[in-house]
Every structure is written in structure tokens, then in C-alpha cells.
């Protein structure tokens, strides 16, 4: 089994107001694609209730940084009480949604993701030694890199949501 290390605590974005779920989804996809991350949509859930739609998204974009380790950003987005609204911005009609959004981003480093060192206990022991003493400095650097990436994505999403707030309040 590969080993998962959480390197950045969940960065949480909470927002209530106007937004577009499709725009946020596309923003995450575009951002990850531009940086050569592989897309993986773990779950899409939509529940239609009386007070609006409840949407849950679990996305896990990942990027192999070597044959041994890869980065994963675990994105859990839940949108609740989502209702469709039509808003006029600068005389143009826009289809948006209103509701509340909670997005959490967690950075995870997965080591030995191909399970190359799993074949025997001897190899597993060697891997532990390798992780503890040889790869440690490198892991620190990688953890910092991933933390920065998670922060960058968080800033991108926050900026997008704040932009919505700003445009609508004009």
C-alpha cells in the first residue's frame, strides 16, 4: 500500500451569495490543467430538495513528481441551498446561482504510489529507511511546494468568489 502524508491542513473557503458552480468547477479544472495536473473527479452528487439544490464535489487532481511520489490536492466542495437566479450586470443578463459554498483544500503527498516497494517485507523496511534518512530533505521541499500550490489555488478560488460579490454589488 502506498503511503499518504497530509502536508497542508485543510484550507477552507466559506462563502454565501452569488456564484456559478460551473465556473468554479471550470476554474479548478483549468488551473490544474495549466499546471499539468491529472484530473480525477472522485464524486459528483446533486440532491434536489425543497430549499434548493445541494451539490457535493470531491475532486482529486494529482501530479506525479517522480516515479516514487505524487501530489494530490483533495478538494471537497459542498454547495447548499443553491437556487438559480438571473442577475443584471452592466445591462447584461447573467445566469448565476445563489446559495452557500464551503470548499476545503488539502495537500497530500503519496509515496510509492506504484507499489514498487511493496513486494516483500525487506523492501518495505528499506523503503522506511529511505524515507526517513535519504528522502527526508527532499520530502520537506516537496511539502513546501505542495503547500504553495494549495495556497495558490485557494487564492484563485477566493478571488473568483470575491469578484462575483463585487460585480453583483455594483
Amino acid at each position: 500500500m502506498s503511503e499518504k502524508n497530509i502536508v497542508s491542513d485543510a484550507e477552507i473557503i466559506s462563502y454565501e451569495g452569488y456564484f456559478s458552480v460551473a465556473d468554479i468547477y471550470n476554474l479548478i479544472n483549468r488551473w490544474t490543467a495549466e499546471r499539468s495536473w491529472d484530473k480525477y473527479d472522485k464524486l459528483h452528487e446533486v440532491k434536489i430538495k425543497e430549499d434548493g439544490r445541494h451539490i457535493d464535489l470531491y475532486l482529486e487532481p494529482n501530479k506525479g513528481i517522480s516515479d516514487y511520489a505524487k501530489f494530490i490536492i483533495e478538494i471537497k466542495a459542498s454547495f447548499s441551498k443553491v437556487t438559480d437566479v438571473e442577475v443584471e450586470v452592466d445591462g447584461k443578463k447573467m445566469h448565476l446561482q445563489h446559495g452557500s459554498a464551503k470548499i476545503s483544500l488539502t495537500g497530500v503527498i503519496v509515496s510509492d504510489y506504484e507499489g514498487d516497494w511493496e513486494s516483500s517485507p525487506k523492501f518495505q523496511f528499506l523503503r522506511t529507511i529511505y524515507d526517513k534518512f535519504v528522502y527526508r530533505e527532499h520530502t520537506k521541499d516537496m511539502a513546501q511546494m505542495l503547500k504553495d500550490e494549495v495556497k495558490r489555488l485557494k487564492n484563485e478560488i477566493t478571488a473568483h468568489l470575491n469578484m462575483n460579490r463585487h460585480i453583483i454589488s455594483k
Partner: protein
Amino acid sequence: MGEKIDIHKTGPLTYSGYYDWPGLYSTIIGWAKKERLKVFETLYKDKISKGFTEREIEFTFLRKVDRMNKYIYKVAIKIWDAQKVEVTQNGEVKKIERGRLRVLIEGSIDRDHQGLFEKGVFWLTIRNIFYRMRHWQWLFEHADTVQTKVYELQKVIKEQLGMDTK
């Protein structure tokens, strides 16, 4: 025969609410026809109890790309608590369904689907050398295509269901 390689399996797409079942069915078949895939409905189960329907349906779509590679897409849909309801949309009365559904899509490639290299150990060794030589090219040419198509089908289904992340 051949060697089946799993390329991509999507996470579950779950939906709870109103949906147009015949519309969804024809959208999936329509996509497969557009992609020139052979359509097989491998499972259709309908169980009605206490006015609710539980439905399970599986499709397999195939396409022989060349003498070596065959693309395989599998779509599994499971519906719980389905109930027929009448709704008025733009002054038009429509019969649709309400329930919970889950869609899973899987894409794989059957390499050497004709078993051309399976006539002995010698030919199997040749096949493995050939695979190793063309590994990256094969990834870009075939594996990427299958993965993209899996996401394309997922997008089509999301659009049909009116999900926001289409």
C-alpha cells in the same frame, strides 16, 4: 483473448431529483453512435415494489481501432426509488421520473484483441518487446483518447441531468 488494460474509472456521479429517463437513455446511446461505437446493453433489470422502481442497466460500447487495440467503455447506471411524475414545463405537461441515480463509467483497452501474438511463448515475448518500445506512443495515442472520451461521456450525462458542473 488479448490483454485488457484499465485506463480510467470515473468516480460515482450521483443525482437525486427529477430526470428524464428516456432522454438520458437516448443521450447515452446517441453519444455512442456519434463516436461510432458498437452498442451492447449487457444488463437491464427492473424491480417494482410498493410503487417504486429499482432499475439497473449496463452498457458496453466497443470500437476496434486497429488490428491490435479495441476500446471498451462500460456504463453502469443504478436507479433507486424511481417514481413517474407529471410536471408542467413551459405550459407543456411532461411525464418524467423522480428518484436517485448513480452513474459509473469505465474505459479500458483490449490490446491484441485478435490474439495475433498468443500463439506461443516466442510471440508473447515479441509482443512484450513491441509494447515496451511503443509504450509512450501508445499512451498518447490510445490511453489518452479513452480517458478523454470517458470524461466527454460523463459531461454529456451531466448536461442531460442538468447538473451544474457540466
